[in-house]
């Protein structure tokens, strides 16, 4: 070997070594034990307020686990974000772009449209899709949807929870007989999802029901509220989204309907829904699976560990403990605990998507465990099984006092026994249409590595 060749070889070797050292961080991280969350977030566009809150809370919790605990049993949590602006095409494109990352734990798009578009894809890829508090109701049935998890609350449970709350205000379910309830719903598949279940509950409990559609986006509701005023209902259930919610509250005030007889659903329950309505929102009550406020140990730890060190994800610290931020934190807890549970079975290492699915299917956090996680009263409990992917979440109700939400009810259980046969009927029809064989408990125990 000539001197010239040796020099060239040495230069090449040095170059390779330098290149290896300067590999992008994410490539080197992929080699270590890590669990990855690809996030189809939306931080700009019409729904950015909800997106920044939810994904901010989710990332804050993942960051807390990394900073405080060094990850989940030493496995670091990582994430990458792709902006979707809440648009389905962008969400799917983001999925295709991010899915090749190693060690994906679960997808959390917080979008009904994007979630629907991903079901076949994630099922083929065997990676869980988390649709906390939303998504299609029949995906609760794990026999048909092995990888979809509408954690804590599906739309039917929400409906049942709201009716149970109204009953509790009236003095019991039997007191609903003869009452009149109007459901004002967003003119979209999301808004229409609960039409049959309200009809069923009206029949069962004997209340009169009128369901009124508000065309998207809902920035004009004069005619709907005049119709409501003429109908003189005892309660109005607001099943809104985005701008429809403050406009509903303002128009209700304008047409003389009492705000404390309006009950909001889970996507009409945030600060963004009430602040623009100003005085008209004072006294408005809405359902939630997670209380708001920063007075919970886990939120305090996030503030101490992250925000006080300048590492928090929210730009505006005033939003810490807001409804969407706390929903993101709870979502973080559920994802992390599913990984922890799966690690206990499969080992403290990077898990496959199917192993994490197994973890979600054993995600049972009783109130004592929730308290140990620093989330007592933030949310109640969850009990996911292989065939019940919602996990029987409890709900509570918060009332807006003009500056903050205040919890005004105990934790309320929806009527799961009543809802389950309806859910199974729908999921079995879906399975028949798609040629899906119903999974058994034994099938669910089988895991792909």
């Amino acid at each position: 070997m000539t001197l010239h060749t040796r020099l060239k070889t040495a230069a090449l070797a040095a170059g390779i070594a330098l290149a290896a050292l300067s590999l992008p961080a994410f490539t080197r991280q992929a080699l270590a034990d890590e669990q990855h969350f690809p996030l189809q977030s939306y931080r700009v566009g019409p729904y950015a307020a909800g997106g920044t809150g939810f994904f901010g809370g989710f990332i804050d919790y993942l960051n807390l686990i990394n900073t405080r605990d060094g990850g989940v049993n030493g496995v670091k949590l990582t994430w990458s974000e792709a902006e979707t602006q809440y648009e389905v095409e962008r969400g799917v494109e983001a999925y295709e772009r991010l899915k090749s990352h190693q060690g994906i734990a679960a997808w959390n798009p917080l979008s009904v449209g994007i979630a629907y578009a991903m079901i076949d894809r994630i099922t083929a890829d065997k990676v869980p899709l988390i649709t906390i508090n939303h998504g299609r109701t029949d995906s609760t049935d794990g026999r048909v949807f092995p990888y979809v998890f509408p954690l804590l609350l599906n739309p039917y449970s929400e409906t049942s929870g709201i009716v149970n709350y109204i009953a509790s205000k009236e003095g019991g379910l039997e007191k609903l007989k003869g009452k009149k309830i109007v459901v004002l719903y967003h003119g979209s598949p999301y808004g229409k999802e609960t039409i049959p279940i309200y009809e069923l509950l009206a029949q069962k409990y004997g209340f009169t029901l009128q369901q009124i559609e508000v065309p998207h986006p809902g920035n004009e509701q004069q005619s709907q509220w005049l119709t409501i005023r003429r109908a003189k209902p005892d309660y109005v259930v607001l099943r809104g989204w985005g701008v429809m919610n403050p406009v509903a509250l303002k128009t209700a005030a304008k047409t003389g309907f009492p705000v404390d007889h309006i009950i909001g659903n889970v996507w009409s329950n945030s600060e963004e829904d009430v602040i623009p309505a100003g005085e008209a929102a004072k006294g408005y009550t809405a359902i939630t699976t997670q209380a708001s406020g920063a007075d919970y140990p886990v939120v305090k730890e996030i503030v101490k560990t992250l925000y006080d060190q300048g590492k928090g994800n929210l730009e505006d610290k005033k939003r810490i403990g807001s409804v969407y931020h706390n929903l993101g934190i709870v979502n973080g807890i559920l994802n992390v605990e599913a990984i922890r549970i799966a690690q206990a079975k499969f080992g403290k290492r990077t898990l496959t998507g199917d192993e994490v699915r197994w973890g979600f299917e054993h995600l049972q956090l009783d109130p004592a465990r929730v308290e140990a996680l620093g989330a007592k009263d933030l949310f109640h409990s969850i009990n996911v099984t292989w065939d019940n992917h919602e996990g029987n979440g409890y709900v509570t109700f918060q009332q807006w006092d003009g500056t903050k939400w205040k919890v005004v009810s105990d934790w309320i259980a929806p009527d799961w026994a009543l809802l389950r046969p309806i859910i199974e009927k729908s999921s079995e029809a879906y399975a028949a249409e798609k040629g899906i064989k119903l999974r058994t408990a034994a099938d669910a125990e089988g895991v792909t590595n």
Partner: protein
Amino acid sequence: MADFDWSFFTEVLVGGLLSGVMYSLVAIGFVLIYKTSGVLNFAQGALLLFAALTFVSLVERGLPFALAFLVTFAAMVLIGVAIERTVLRPLTNKPPITLFMATLGLSYIIEGAAQLLWGTQVHGLDLGIEDLPFDVAGVFVSQFDLFAAATAALMVALLSAFFRYSRIGLGFRAVADDPFAALAIGLRLPFIWASVWAAAGLVALVAGLLWGARLGVQFSLSLVVLKALPVLVLGGFDSILGAIVGGLLIGASEKLAEVYLGDLVGGGIEGWFAYVVALAFLLIRPAGLFGQKLVERV
């Protein structure tokens, strides 16, 4: 008909007319630009959002109401002039579809810039006018809607006086009638266009504040353009009077249709019913109720 509830009908009609005025407020901004430059400015909704977001952000940072209004107006004038200089002037004499696409692109840029500059949070906007109803012979009328109607009337009166009696206004009318003739007699077209964009900015600011007080200041504000389009089709793209009358007709007809026809077809029809009315007018009067009929010699 004996059972017909006339009081309720009147309430729906009045509510619809007052809502229509709100649509007119947005439509006037379109008319101003279209009249002078023949451009359907799709960015009007984005300008409205930008104006409202800027105003409310300044107020939240402690600026007094009047000062925030003036600063926002100055910003709108600057944006109008910048659009005229950097986008529309280089595209002079290009086909209308090119100009329309340019304003479509502008709307995305302005929306993005607004969120980049002021953040994505939703804001409440209190103009100090209570939005509670008062009873007029059994009919509930909204105080806020009446205030909005009065504001719209005042704005139309001011704009009419401006275009009738001021030098720039007369120039504006000359350009609207025949831009080439206006150029030939020495009118400074760029200055007039810039002035019109500034006026459209003022309209966007006023409409943005009223709509913002109604909906909250949030991204969805830019969607109110969808309410103005049928108004323009019906009233004519180049008539301020048409924008007012069109707004009233669209507002009243969509509300009455929602209440009295909605149940027959499952409800939720007012969003598209306005376009049905507009299309029906388009078939009968393509230039709209008050639009200028174009006659070309061949």
